């Protein structure tokens, strides 16, 4: 079984923000919510580095550990998802996440914090596949269409790789050997350095 991961190659990212736009377009993410963003270090200086950041779907996800209402679950592909019908928008996951992935839409006249929104690895959520409810709450379910996340697939320089961990790690290894530098993968150790936490048993889910 594939273990889905993201890999951001700082040597290749040109800060085009194509991944951010693709994510926004694919999932029709509301204004003010950025499931993915590009972070640039030493911006404007020679040797600046950019990386595309979103939920990394960690092996042992800290958001899952701190959620007081246990609305998170992990699919058999290792994608960390959550049930928005249970989320209370407390924001604990935002404080726990090392990548700042959880986003909170500002709803209403007084800017009330809404239910948490984050990258789903384009895997939808706990609603019937391709349903209007799934799209409205979680965005498009590309994984069920046999596709990978839009951000990674559209990346022009292939700086952002997404998919089966073994395959993308092989692609990256081959790339590093060819160019002879830049073997450091930003966020990889933080996200996947700890042992894999087994997917939580979901009552009624088909295996």
């Amino acid at each position, binding site marked *: 079984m594939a273990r889905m991961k993201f890999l951001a190659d700082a040597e290749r990212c040109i800060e085009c923000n194509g991944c951010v736009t693709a994510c926004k377009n694919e999932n029709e993410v509301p204004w003010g919510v950025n499931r993915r963003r590009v972070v640039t270090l030493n911006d404007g200086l020679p040797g600046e580095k950019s990386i595309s950041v979103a939920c990394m779907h960690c092996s042992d996800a800290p958001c899952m550990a701190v959620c007081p209402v246990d609305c998170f679950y992990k*699919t058999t592909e290792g994608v960390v998802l959550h049930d928005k019908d249970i989320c209370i928008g407390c924001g604990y996951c935002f404080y726990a996440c090392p990548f700042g992935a959880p986003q909170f839409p500002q709803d209403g006249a007084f800017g009330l914090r809404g239910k948490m929104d984050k990258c789903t690895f384009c895997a939808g959520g706990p609603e019937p596949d391709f349903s209007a409810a799934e799209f409205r709450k979680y965005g498009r379910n590309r994984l069920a269409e046999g596709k990978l996340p839009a951000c990674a697939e559209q990346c022009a320089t292939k700086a952002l790789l997404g998919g089966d961990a073994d395959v993308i790690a092989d692609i990256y290894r081959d790339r590093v050997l060819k160019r002879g530098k830049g073997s450091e993968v930003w966020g990889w150790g933080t996200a996947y350095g700890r042992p894999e936490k087994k997917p939580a048993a979901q009552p009624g889910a088909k295996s």
Partner: protein
Amino acid sequence: MKRLIVIGAAAVLPLIAAGCGEKATVTVYKQGQYQGKPDNQPWDSEQFKGDKVAWEKAIKARNLGQNEYVRAAPAAN
């Protein structure tokens, strides 16, 4: 007088004991257990109709498509 105290105590005791039978009114979350709705597998979608092998094949093709060293034709020397 003593009899009155005994009768009074017998009447009050059930009221005090009734407090012990109070049930918790807050939702109890099972720590570490997902509380939401179940999600189905990606290969259970209309497109793959439960064919896990076909889904994995489609995903693998997409995965390998990200490797431009393989995708691009080797340069002719």
